[in-house]
């Protein structure tokens, strides 16, 4: 007889069972960063996502915190692009500067327009394929 058993979503159970909390925390953090890249097409959505990531960042080790920082910078850059398209130059400049400050803190050696634009290319390409 066929039976159906509901299963919990996959939340790195194998790692949890081994009490490897740091690895599981890193996996959950990185997974959250991925999920935050989905469905953000308006400046307000992007700002919410960046705020959420900012809260998530608190108390994290330097390495995963840096990954979150880069995602926040990417969100700010995307906000800047959208604000510029809408003619809100002041808001656009403010968000671009916030993104530049973050990537400088991550050791970036060039913050030219071309380099910064490439930060969002990957996500825009990914969204375009969906």
């Amino acid at each position, binding site marked *: 007889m066929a039976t159906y058993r509901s299963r919990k979503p996959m939340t*790195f159970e194998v790692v949890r069972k081994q009490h490897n909390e740091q690895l599981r925390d890193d996996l959950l953090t990185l997974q959250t960063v991925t999920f935050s890249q989905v469905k953000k097409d308006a400046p307000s959505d992007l700002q919410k996502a960046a705020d959420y990531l900012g809260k998530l960042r608190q108390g994290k080790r330097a390495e995963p915190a840096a990954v979150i920082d*880069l995602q926040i910078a990417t969100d700010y850059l995307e906000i800047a692009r959208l604000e510029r398209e809408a003619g809100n130059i002041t808001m656009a400049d403010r968000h671009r500067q916030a993104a530049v400050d973050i990537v400088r803190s991550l*050791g970036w050696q060039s913050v030219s327009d071309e380099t910064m634009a490439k930060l969002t290319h990957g996500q825009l390409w990914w969204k375009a394929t969906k």
Partner: protein
Amino acid sequence: MTGAMKVTFLVAAILGLGCGGYGGHRTAVEVSDSLKSIQYLAPTNVASDFARTQFMRADTNHARQAVMLQIRLLEQLELADKSFHARELSWAYTRLAMVEEAAGQTEAERRALDQARARDKRDRFRSKDLTDDELRNAVKVLDRAFDNL
């Protein structure tokens, strides 16, 4: 039907069932492993993208930190869950070697290249080892493609 034929048919049936069962079981295990390891796809991709971006854009210390994050994550995952296979580790070790080369750390560069070669040979079933330049070039081609998306 003679006794010899009966025995032949019986042996053939047992062999067929055994081989089929073994093959089916192996396939099921492989599919199950793939399904289980899908959960690691999102976090390992983020770590990989971060390492690649920092490797291309950041100074030596930050690039090393990012590449080490990816390497530790992949190594720990392989140890924790046998269903996971870190096929990107050879590229990660190669990037680490290139970071160490830029930092003038010759010994660390050599160690990382040896690890990259060993992983590449294991993961891609090569009959011969890749040279240092082949490893570096493979990473450069990958990064160039990513950069031109």
